[in-house]
């Protein structure tokens, strides 16, 4: 009986204790047990990839590891620093200093080595092994831990660097597409719990939160981008220009095929380059377009049936009187000339007369319709909107019609010429083809279209612009095997300090399309401050257009539409700016014979190339409107 009672009490006691542990201390004990075997790991997912239109990765992230330390866990800082420094092959001081500081300030997190590749990690792991066993996927050394991070790689180095941009050390997009598409590309933080056995082996794990980052497919083509960059680099060096921009676009779809800037930088080592090189000048820099802007006056007047392409204009003596400003003298426009020829030789007289015919309001309206004065909406950050205002008076209209008192971006001019190439329909330029998640397209971009002018007007304007290439200022843009049209532009740069245009600094551009009848590509080439002797758009920018078009058109599968001929155009055959315009100040009566301002010392292009290659541009003078 006693024995039974003893057993009952004994079992009852155990039962009571079990009930107490299971019910009263449940939460606490459960927590303890989980703590003993479970880790909750927070990991940042790899940033999304940026592809070109042919599926070549342009920016991709890789998993890497960083070695971090918790100084509070390390007892002998000096000895540890010495050992780690030896393994990492760095000076002991490099490790000792942060560890000491961390210990003094009670820090529990100090970076020792960042973004190491797999092989280095394995090597360090092997060499850091101590008898004290830690969890087997962590460094076997007290106080040291691995932290999973990611490293962004740009396999094509400087290719489309300003366009793609780069992400900083914290994997946050800091320029270009990397910045503008940050919300899509950034890798979300995932939470995973892992159960470990007594040897530290994970035997169960589950992801609590996970959202795959998205990949961005661009419209640019790796191959075309390279060709454009090569042509631009050669052109900039040959013209000894400060910088250059070249953009190629499909006028039908608005897809940007290439957007090149020179000088460029390598996003893999962006800290080694000047900050100015990060600027995507094609969309961020504004400049006075010069004669490229003449299409507004001619296009508007043609569309309003105020002029006809083969109609004639009487230039009289080619002088336009300006109130309180310099008179405009046009040497190319004497007596009667057709509008087509006037545009071909870039006549300021004919343009101003045409703009006046069009009127202030219409001129402003057409400027806006062509997309000037507002951002194009392209998917890159910090796009400049340009400056176009309603002409205040007749003089202002005259200035604006020949591309002064307005500020544009290279992309805006490209878009405007794309409108002419696309039968009068302006298509919003775009860089993103589609967004993907898990390899599947989740969204594609659609181009917005706006009818700016009739198809007939656009066709007439294309023919006029073709004449610019065949017999005008852009003879060097003549292509082998393809017809082409376009317009040159040479404008003085505005010097903000002197508050006037600098006669020694130019923006030389050529915007063209090919083939002329049914354009498949529009190309804009803009050079900043060419100083190699030749400086007009037709002399320095048109050859770059030619090289780009001749190499890209066959790649796009466009068949030649004219006989293949290889022509070399001499400077004498191209109407230059000195012949085209002269100026006269009516207010000042004193007339004297003056030598033409001596050009800067001429050097052979190849020699200059070497010098310019050695120089790194430091600052870029911002080009502003005249604001007279």
């Amino acid at each position, binding site marked *: 009986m006693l024995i039974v009672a003893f057993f009952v009490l004994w079992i009852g006691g155990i039962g009571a204790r079990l009930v107490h542990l299971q019910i009263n201390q449940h939460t606490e004990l459960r927590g303890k047990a989980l703590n003993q075997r479970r880790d909750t790991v927070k990991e940042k997912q790899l940033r999304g990839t940026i592809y070109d239109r042919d599926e070549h990765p342009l920016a991709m992230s890789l998993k890497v590891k960083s070695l971090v330390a918790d100084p509070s866990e390390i007892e002998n800082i000096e000895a540890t620093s010495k050992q780690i420094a030896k393994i990492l092959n760095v000076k002991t001081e490099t490790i000792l200093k942060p560890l000491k500081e961390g210990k003094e300030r009670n820090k529990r997190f100090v970076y020792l080595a960042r973004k190491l590749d797999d092989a280095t990690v394995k090597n360090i792991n092997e060499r850091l092994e101590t008898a004290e066993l830690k969890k087997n996927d962590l460094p076997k050394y007290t106080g040291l831990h691995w932290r999973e991070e990611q490293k962004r790689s740009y396999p094509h180095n400087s290719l489309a660097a300003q366009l793609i941009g780069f992400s900083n050390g914290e994997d946050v997009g800091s320029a270009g597409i990397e910045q503008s598409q940050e919300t899509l590309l950034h890798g979300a933080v995932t939470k995973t719990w892992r159960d470990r056995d007594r040897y530290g082996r994970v035997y169960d794990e589950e992801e609590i939160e996970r959202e795959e980052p998205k990949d961005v497919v661009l419209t640019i083509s790796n191959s075309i981008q390279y060709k454009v960059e090569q042509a631009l680099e050669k052109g900039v060096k040959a013209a000894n220009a400060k910088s250059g921009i070249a953009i190629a676009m499909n006028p039908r779809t608005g897809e940007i095929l290439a957007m090149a800037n020179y000088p460029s930088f390598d996003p893999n080592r962006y800290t080694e380059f000047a900050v100015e090189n990060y600027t995507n000048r094609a969309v961020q820099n504004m400049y006075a377009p010069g004669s490229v802007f003449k299409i507004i006056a001619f296009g508007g007047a043609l569309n309003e049936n105020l002029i006809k392409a083969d109609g004639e204009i009487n230039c009289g003596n080619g002088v336009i009187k300006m109130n309180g400003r310099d008179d405009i003298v046009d040497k190319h426009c004497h007596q009667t000339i057709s509008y087509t020829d006037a545009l071909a030789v870039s006549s300021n007289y004919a343009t101003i007369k045409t703009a006046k015919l069009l009127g202030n309001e219409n001129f402003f309206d057409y400027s806006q319709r062509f997309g000037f004065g507002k951002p194009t909406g392209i998917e890159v950050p910090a796009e400049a909107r340009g400056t176009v205002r309603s002409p205040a008076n007749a003089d202002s209209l005259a200035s604006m019609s020949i591309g002064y008192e307005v500020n544009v971006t290279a992309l805006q001019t490209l878009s405007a010429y794309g409108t002419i190439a696309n039968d009068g329909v302006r298509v919003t330029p775009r860089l993103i083809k589609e967004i993907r998640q898990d390899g599947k397209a989740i969204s594609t971009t659609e181009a917005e279209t706006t009818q700016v002018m009739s198809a007939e007007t656009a066709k007439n304007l294309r023919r006029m612009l073709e004449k610019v290439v065949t017999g005008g200022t852009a003879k060097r843009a003549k292509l082998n095997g393809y017809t082409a049209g376009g317009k040159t532009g040479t404008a003085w740069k505005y010097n903000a300090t002197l508050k006037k245009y600098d006669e020694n600094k130019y923006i030389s551009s050529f915007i063209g399309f090919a083939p002329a009848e049914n354009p498949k590509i529009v190309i804009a080439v803009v050079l900043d401050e060419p100083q190699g002797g030749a400086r007009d758009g037709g002399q320095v920018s048109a050859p770059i257009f030619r090289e780009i078009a001749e190499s890209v058109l066959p790649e796009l599968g466009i068949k030649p539409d004219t006989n293949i001929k290889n022509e070399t155009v001499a400077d004498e055959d191209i109407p230059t700016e000195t012949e085209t315009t*002269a*100026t006269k100040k009516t207010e000042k009566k004193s007339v004297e014979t003056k030598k033409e301002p001596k050009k800067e010392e001429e050097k052979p292009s*190849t020699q200059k190339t070497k010098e310019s290659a050695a120089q790194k541009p430091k600052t870029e003078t911002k080009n502003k409107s005249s604001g007279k």
Partner: protein
Amino acid sequence: MSRKNTSKNRNPQNVKREGDPIPWRYCLLTLGCGLILVGGFFFAARQHFSSIDYGIKNSQLKKQKDELETAQRQLLIDKEFALSPTSIKKVAKEYGFTEVAASIESLYTESKDTKVKPKTEKISDTKTVVKKSDVNTRKEEKKPENKTIVKTDSKTKKGV
């Protein structure tokens, strides 16, 4: 009122007496149940340990998959690096290939002074430099043009 004498109807074989042995079939039944129970425990234990084992293997495979994916990404990047035009150019140079003369540069040399072509000296397969003496000749030839203009100190315009 009649009273049934049940003792008469009782089967003597069914009556248990103290000290009687437990029937063998009960023993077998108990033993069977015990074995099933023990077997169940063993089975559960085996399942538990094999699930842990599978868990470990699963986690190792996941890790391996992650590593392979990283390696695949690395290889993809390496491939792109290798196929990038800059790398191809570099390799081509190593193999002795030379670049075709730049057409733009030739355009420039042909341009400004077409009549007096600067003599070029070939210093390498790809680069050409213009002799300094030729440059001077070019400079001298380019005499400043006399032009009648009205003196002005204000901003002027030009455009082509």
